[in-house]
């Protein structure tokens, strides 16, 4: 084998830089995210001057007393900032999970909810609400924990159903996910009907939102997001190879089955944690990875970090619109993500005729 390398080296000396690599994209996206965080924290339904916002944040970060009003302090530090950061974390998590799902399934319609994460969390939380479980236990959101368990259980159920003779083909897996989701949704509908007095609460959860964000929500999601982000990023190159037909991916040396399980589990865990806290926020996990792909191409080593950064920026801006456009009222953030994200995505589709989805 050494010989082929030798001949080959002689023949291919002129090739070196990885084609199409644009290293500036990640710092640019990070800068954009930072700008979105600053904007999101500065603007809100409560009229607080930007310099006071800055003083509040600096005061807390540096541990100084910068003479800010108590109302401004509560609003900025306890309500607005955690909400902005939660929007960023959830948006980023959904987007990179969505990218991983799309990569694993080689299916442009895949999103982090494909295997029943959303409906599973919804069913479990609905059951908890109807059963009258305490929503908060010892200052910790019991409801989120229940939803998380439901989401993970649904994915595992879909996976174990789809697994035949140690292997689960993507089509079977998708169908199993659809079936499990349908069962969950039927369960939700049934519970809503038999328990009318709770349906408003259930409905609001299903619509998804960030209105009751707290620092504790961030702490709940962050470990899963970080772990999943790390695991999935390490698989960037393998995700590229997984874009080959399954048989070919195996022939070049990828243990398709195992890689798939690891990626799906990681992405599902992170999405489950996000869904359990904020409810179903649609569109982010589906569209952001596609938008990024249209901008920078299909290489997952760029796609994953840029999806995370882009998804975070996108949801922060969407939530900013959601809480300011009909101030003091709110618009469900899912409405904004579809309404703002849809046209932007269509613009990208048109601009880039060479569709590479």
């Amino acid at each position: 084998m050494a010989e082929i390398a030798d001949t080959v080296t002689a023949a291919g000396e002129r090739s070196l830089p990885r084609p199409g690599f644009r290293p500036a994209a990640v710092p640019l996206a990070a800068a954009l995210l930072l700008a979105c965080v600053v904007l999101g924290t500065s603007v809100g339904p409560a009229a607080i001057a930007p310099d006071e916002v800055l003083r509040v944040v600096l005061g807390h970060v540096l541990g100084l007393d910068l003479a800010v009003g108590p109302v401004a302090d509560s609003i900025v530090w306890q309500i607005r900032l955690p909400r902005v950061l939660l929007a960023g974390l959830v948006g980023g998590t959904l987007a990179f999970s969505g990218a991983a799902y799309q990569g694993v399934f080689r299916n442009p319609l895949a999103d982090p909810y494909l295997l029943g994460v959303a409906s599973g969390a919804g069913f479990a939380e609905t059951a908890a609400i109807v059963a009258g479980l305490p929503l908060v236990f010892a200052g910790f959101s019991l409801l989120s924990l229940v939803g998380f368990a439901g989401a993970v259980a649904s994915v595992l159920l879909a996976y174990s159903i789809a697994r035949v003779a140690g292997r689960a083909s993507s089509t079977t897996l998708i169908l199993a996910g659809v079936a499990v989701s349908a069962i969950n949704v039927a369960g939700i509908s049934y519970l809503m009907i038999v328990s009318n007095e709770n349906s408003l609460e259930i409905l609001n959860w299903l619509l998804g939102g960030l209105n009751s964000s707290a620092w504790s929500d961030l702490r709940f999601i962050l470990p899963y997001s970080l772990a999943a982000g790390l695991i999935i990023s390490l698989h960037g190159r393998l995700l590229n190879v997984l874009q080959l037909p399954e048989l070919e991916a195996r022939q070049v040396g990828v243990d398709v089955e195992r890689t798939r399980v690891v990626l799906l589990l990681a992405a599902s865990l992170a999405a489950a944690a996000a869904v359990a806290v904020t409810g179903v926020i649609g569109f982010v996990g589906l569209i952001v990875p596609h938008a990024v792909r249209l901008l920078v191409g299909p290489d997952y080593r760029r796609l994953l970090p840029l999806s995370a950064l882009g998804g975070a920026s996108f949801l922060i801006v969407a939530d900013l619109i959601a809480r300011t456009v009909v101030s003091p009222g709110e618009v469900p953030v899912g409405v904004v993500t579809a309404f703002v994200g849809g046209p932007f995505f269509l613009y990208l589709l048109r601009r880039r005729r060479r569709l590479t989805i």
Partner: protein
Amino acid sequence: MLSVRDLHAAYDERPVLRGVDLDVGAGEVVGLVGPNGCGKTTLLRAINRSLPLKGGRVCLDEADVTALSVRELARRVAVVPQNAEPPAGFSALEAVVMGRTAHLGFFAQEGAADYRLAAAALAMVGVADLRDRRVEELSGGERQKVVIARALAQEAPLLLLDEPTANLDIGQQVAVARLLRELAAAKGFAVLAAIHDLTLASFYCDRLALMAEGQIVASGAPAAVLTRENIARVYGLDAVVLRRPFLAGPAVLPLSEEV
């Protein structure tokens, strides 16, 4: 290099391979010929473990393929599947460098050496100029060559090809066939290729294995396998087998019905 013994395989309960024995040595090009549905593709898949076996053994040198991990197998066997589709959006070079997967650490990235190897593989199949083109913009023949280049970049001592020349014009067919010969001769690769075109197979293969209904019914030098009787028996076709000094091997020409 490759030895297949009494191999059986089935799709569901329908047997497709019924006791196949086959050897391919280092530096040897073996052509797998036979009518559609005789089990050529199945045999190639069974050899690289893409298909569960019902019986028999496949050994690479001394190692049973069932004992190898996916990565170990990919380092020993490279495959050019029929109608391969490199993933859209990637450049030809990126598609070829995916062939390096089995040689890279699990989370390692490709280095400059891998890209050099990939570029050289493209050059070897004669499409060095395609390296930065997106694979979905390539013609069927160009794509086929990119997939062959990927298999070369895999640096495996056994090369399995399923109809590698199917999408190519006659000039390209010959170019690919010659390349396979050169690789076998120069690098000691063992090459096993399923080929429909009997004449092309006869010109460029050291040996042919003629399959029918899941079994190898004749094997040996092309002149010994490609007889009028064998072709009539296996293909149900009356053909003349033309032997001329200026041809690299026997040429198979179907007879017109009126004769």
